[in-house]
């Protein structure tokens, strides 16, 4: 990762998690568990967040700003495939093998986010099924919408 995480108190992180739209309605216990794998972070405009092919070891919840996803094209200019805005999650590749980013992610404007350690969450995944089910359900919702949006763009 190319970011410099800022250390924030646990209670501050818990507050930021509880306020994030993606985690709306999560039980306080789940927020506490998630906060143990979370760190607040910030990206400047044009800062690279991750690159295709690198190990995918976590994901982000965007609080403010915007991130663009690009498909690298060798020597040619990258192609923008999607963008992720405030209130949305960024990054799925940490969930399943081969655990590698498929696209480049770059902040299009100053962006604040919460970064989660995928390794810590994966370890927890099969122990706390209630939390894992909640996370998968919420992620599925976002994935379906993005899949439908990408397919609609493909149709035109």
């Amino acid at each position, binding site marked *: 990762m190319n970011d410099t995480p800022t250390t924030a108190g646990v209670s501050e992180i818990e507050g930021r998690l509880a306020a994030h739209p993606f985690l709306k309605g999560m039980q306080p216990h789940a927020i506490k568990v998630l906060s143990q794998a979370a760190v607040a972070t910030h990206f400047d405009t044009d800062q690279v967040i991750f690159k295709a092919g690198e190990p995918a070891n976590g994901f982000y919840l965007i609080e403010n700003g915007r991130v663009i996803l690009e*498909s690298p*094209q060798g020597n040619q200019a990258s192609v923008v495939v999607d963008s992720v805005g405030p209130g949305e999650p960024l990054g*799925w590749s940490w969930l*399943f093998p081969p655990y590698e980013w498929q696209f480049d992610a770059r902040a299009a404007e100053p962006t604040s986010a919460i970064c989660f350690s995928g390794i810590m969450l994966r370890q927890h995944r099969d122990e706390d099924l209630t939390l*894992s089910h909640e996370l998968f359900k919420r992620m599925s919702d976002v994935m*379906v919408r993005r899949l439908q949006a990408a*397919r609609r763009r*493909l149709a035109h």
Partner: protein
Amino acid sequence: MKTEHRPGDRPELERRVAAHPFLIGMGPREINLLIDCALLTRFEAGQTIFRTGETANRFYLIERGKVALEAESVGESPVLIDTVQAGDLLGWSWLFPPYRWHFDTRAIEPTTAIFFYGTVLREYCERDTVLGYELFKRMSEVMIRRLQAARTALSEALKNAQVAV
């Protein structure tokens, strides 16, 4: 839709649900819950499975054959968006509001599939965390692959459009 389900078919249904690649590794208890919501079904080549805008209350696990996802295109032939093959899951729109199909689907080969009542299954998943977790984990994995494939196809299309300009 031609459903083949008859009361005496339960053992056949059990066998086919448990054998589907998407459900490999599910426990017998979760398989049993799934069977409550399942029917065996079959489509002829060319047969429409669902249409854009119709109520999405179900999904399919394809056992054999191939299904095309197509976008409506006014005055032109439909645009092929994706194909879903044996071993794959067909249909996500039952999961979330507005519960309407976003595309047309049509069998392009003789196709056998297991039909699941999504509406009932959603309630089961809310009551039963193990089932919910196991099902959503598997669905997430398929969605990610399809999303990455769609974005890769999109980047190819955009690159070609740039070259054309």
